């Protein structure tokens, strides 16, 4: 039986090297390469933040006859503009839903709030674990978000809910970097959270900027939680940093893209579909836990993860909340007030 052949093109908004979201998407290409070998050609390009360049890039991919194009939600408008012109190409848009259904667009949205919930639960438990010299007596944890936008707040409301669930007296100190690239600013903010508000764990959802949070963790000798990929494992050459990352809440962009490609190769029709995936699909999960964590906490968290996977935990989502509700929720735990 001859395997069908396919060309894949990944368009990255922003740039690689974030050890998270974008790198994860890039990882899908490796998985595809590994499984399909010569039957799949893969290619990617980094487009930066200039949205004007997105539509021609999509156009280019279509005109070149790529079978599958991966792009993130930042391409939402561009996809709407271009996709219909190249019906033979399948556009897989991840991390958001396309507004109007188009026959050759498959869009994937993730349950970010579940990831936030996992992180919050961990932080809420760990901050009580004062046996660890890195943990102080205050019940304060931190959050650094990229922007005050729904995609990020989805992580945040999950984080708040998870932390409150495990630790009702939890206080959270939070900042928005207002950029997904400004590592220095994220570090400044995390430093303030660690030093001035005694947060012992900071979670970030700030893309590349979030790497600054780990720098701050190293500088203060406190813990952090990674996002999107197993970030601890990516700091092989910086053990000091890796040791301070308790875990990461993985959002398996790589897996979802790979699976989409598999389905495409198997002839499944994906165009026009939208999916909403999370823990249940194995897309959102803890990365391996740090060995500094006590076994009791690990077990509790593993159980929690299983419950979420089974749909037994109700988790709020920023997508179904109004601005006021989000404000109120944030205010109720704000450590600075």
């Amino acid at each position, binding site marked *: 039986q001859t395997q069908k052949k396919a060309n894949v093109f990944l368009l990255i908004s922003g740039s690689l090297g974030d050890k998270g979201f974008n790198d994860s998407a890039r990882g899908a290409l490796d998985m595809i390469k590994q499984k399909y070998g010569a039957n799949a050609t893969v290619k990617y390009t980094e487009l930066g933040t200039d949205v004007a360049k997105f539509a021609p890039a999509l156009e280019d991919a279509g005109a070149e006859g790529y079978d599958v194009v991966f792009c993130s939600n930042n391409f939402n408008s561009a996809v*709407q503009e271009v996709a219909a012109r190249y019906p033979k190409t399948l556009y897989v848009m991840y991390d958001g839903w396309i507004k109007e259904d188009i026959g050759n667009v498959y869009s994937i949205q993730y349950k970010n709030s579940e990831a936030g919930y996992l992180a919050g639960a961990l932080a809420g438990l760990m901050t009580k674990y004062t046996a660890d010299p890195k943990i102080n007596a205050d019940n304060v944890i931190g959050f650094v978000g990229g922007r005050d936008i729904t995609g990020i707040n989805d992580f945040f409301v999950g984080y708040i809910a998870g932390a409150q669930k495990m630790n009702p007296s939890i206080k959270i100190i939070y900042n928005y970097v207002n950029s997904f690239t400004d590592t220095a600013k994220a570090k400044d903010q995390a430093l303030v959270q660690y030093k001035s508000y005694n947060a012992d764990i900071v979670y970030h959802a700030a893309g590349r900027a979030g790497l600054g949070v780990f720098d701050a963790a190293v500088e203060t000798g406190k813990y952090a939680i990674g996002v999107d990929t197993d970030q601890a494992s990516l700091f092989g050459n910086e053990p000091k940093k890796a040791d301070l990352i308790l875990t990461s809440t993985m959002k398996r962009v790589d897996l979802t893209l790979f699976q989409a490609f598999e389905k495409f190769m198997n002839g499944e029709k994906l165009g026009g579909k939208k999916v909403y995936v999370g823990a249940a699909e194995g897309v959102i999960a803890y990365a391996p836990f740090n060995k500094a964590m006590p076994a009791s906490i690990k077990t509790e968290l593993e159980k929690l993860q299983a419950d979420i996977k089974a749909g037994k935990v109700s988790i709020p989502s920023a997508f179904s909340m109004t601005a006021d509700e989000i404000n109120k929720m944030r205010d109720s735990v704000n450590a600075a007030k």
Partner: protein
Amino acid sequence: MNSIKRFFTDRESLAPALVTLFAGLFSLLAGIVLIFIVSKNPVQSVRNFLLAPFLRSYNFYYLLIVMVPITFTGLALCIVYQLRYMSLIVDASFYTGAVVATALGTLISLPSGVHPAVAMIAAGIVGGLIGLLPAILKIRWRANELVSSLMLNYVFYFLGSFVILYYLRDRSQTILSSLPFKKTFLLPRLVANTQLHVGFLIAAGFVVLVSIFLYRTRWGYEIRLTGANPRFAMYAGIPVTSVILYAHFISGFLGGVGGAVEMSGLYRAFIWQMNPSYAWDGVIVAMLARRNPKFVPLSALFFAYLRVGADFMSRRGDVAFEFITLLQGLIILILASDRIVNYFRERQLRKQLLKNSRRESR
């Protein structure tokens, strides 16, 4: 026609024109050399770089689309440069203009045609007022206009994204995006199945308007004289302060309109994740045009050509798009160097005078 003839026969204007041409060609050449250094497949890369607009039709339209915003900022900077000012505030005008247009494009309802026009005018006025700030700071407090405009650009960027984020954001979207524009706000497309929009014609119209304004009206006359020698202008009775102010207003106005045109023409919602900073591109466009609005389309075309080529090449190969900033920098450096610009002219002049004197003394 006359002016074109003069352009090609008059030594005074020919020398700088040749230098401009030289700067363009030299930077292209430097770019090609650079490609050969970094690319594994240089021939293919160079081909993609140089021929992009002709290889694919959408690249050609993209070229025209790219010209629109930089034509606006280029025109705006022509006016500022006519005054010999260095303000870059048009960046803030452009960005804020886009924000104002977004507000009007999403919140109010008006009939098509009128809707974008109203937005453009409002954006222009806001942009114009912003454009005034560095000029006022300079006149009143002698603050260097380049530095103050750069600081203000940050302030207005944050201000603008604040408005988008808290008043105009589409909360159902994961990413930063404003609410979708009303249908009536969108400019029609010029060519079906492309993004080329009516804004291109609007930009062309402004090229004509600004050319007429600068060279055929008394206000343009005042701006040019004030720039040529402000001390003289004051002495001759030109109200220098108000000239500087309205020139900056108009410059900012162009920036604001540019932002609005870009929104209603190219996009369906405000989706800039960062400030696209077309003003910096405008610097090069205006310099290449030698601050004459007539030449802005030509230099915008050249600039867009570089950009589209670099873009295409980087998607297709292994040369990063950012390499064109090297070329842009090179162009500015060459054009800014008096020594280079004047070298040939002065040598020519000196030779001739010495020859004459020898003849005289004989």
